[in-house]
């Protein structure tokens, strides 16, 4: 370190030094980093349990230095339910892609939300199946080309993209819902605050907390990381607006 300078930011302790396998510019990496910054700041490393999915983030347990459990494809919400019910003092999160949470795992997701299970969903919505070769997801935008919708998503045949934040906000026992992104430093800072808020609400046992990351997939969108930010701004945010969809009523401290 240079003399006369002080350290103001370094890689979070709870993010292992292991090189993550994600493609350059992929928000899976950013989400891991921010998640572990929150864990470090709240000092909850020893009592945090994550559930990782099937999808690109299947190896999340190799990177996050907290207790992790792998779930079968789509079943992370059911596994997180079990963990949180047995160990209610732990901070539990599921980490799931859109194929995982909103296609094969829709039943588990909706019922966990309806029951108000007291864990946090970290939902990575990149509008595509990243890991398996860029197939259409339930969240693929209208007209968006993927390997299984080469002429663009046709709502006449497959319906419109699912808006999970808007859907889960309807459940009475869901306490907090926010859609965030990492396309700019300002949005990344908001995203970090959102994850922190979700964990704090979970620790107060107020109900299900749900964070959707409007994410990217430069590799399967077949663009550069920079172009993926433009796609988010021009196509994703107009359909999937960022912001808070639900929060607990303000109580006097």
């Amino acid at each position, binding site marked *: 370190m240079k003399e*006369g300078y002080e350290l103001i930011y370094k890689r979070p302790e709870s993010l292992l030094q292991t090189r993550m396998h994600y493609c350059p510019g992929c928000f899976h990496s950013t989400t891991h980093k921010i998640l572990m910054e929150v864990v470090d700041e709240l000092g909850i490393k020893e009592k945090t349990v994550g559930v990782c999915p099937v999808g690109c983030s299947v190896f999340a347990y190799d990177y996050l230095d907290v207790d992790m459990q792998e779930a079968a494809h789509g079943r992370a919400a059911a596994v997180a339910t079990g963990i949180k019910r047995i160990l209610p003092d732990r901070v539990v999160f599921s980490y799931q892609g859109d194929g995982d949470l909103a296609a094969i795992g829709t039943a588990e997701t909706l019922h966990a939300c309806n029951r108000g299970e007291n864990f946090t969903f970290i939902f990575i919505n990149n509008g595509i199946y990243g890991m398996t070769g860029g197939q259409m997801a339930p969240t693929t935008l209208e007209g968006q080309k993927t390997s299984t919708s080469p002429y663009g998503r046709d709502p006449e045949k497959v319906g419109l993209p699912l808006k999970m934040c808007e859907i889960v906000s309807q459940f009475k026992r869901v306490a907090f819902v926010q859609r965030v992104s990492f396309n700019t430093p300002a949005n990344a800072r908001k995203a970090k605050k959102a994850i922190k808020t979700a964990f704090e609400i979970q620790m107060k046992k107020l109900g299900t907390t749900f964070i959707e990351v409007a994410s990217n997939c430069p590799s399967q969108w077949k663009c550069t990381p920079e172009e993926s930010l433009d796609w988010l701004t021009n196509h994703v945010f107009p359909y999937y607006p960022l912001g808070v969809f639900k929060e607990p009523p303000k109580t006097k401290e």
Partner: protein
Amino acid sequence: MPQKGYVEISVEGCKGCNLCVLHCPTNCLALNTKDTNSYGLHYAYLAEEDKCIACMNCSVICPDAAITVYKKMAA
């Protein structure tokens, strides 16, 4: 006067996504397009150190947590 800073970017940890370069408000970062790390990827570096204002935009946006930020202490 804005604060002064400098950053260290891990050559092996950087994946050359260019997002830090794009979001640095003072344009002091650049991608080294003449050299690669052991993964064959171009890496970002602090090209104009005197311009860095320790704003942490680069470390916030960097997906791979490859950036460490320092701030000059008050004299």
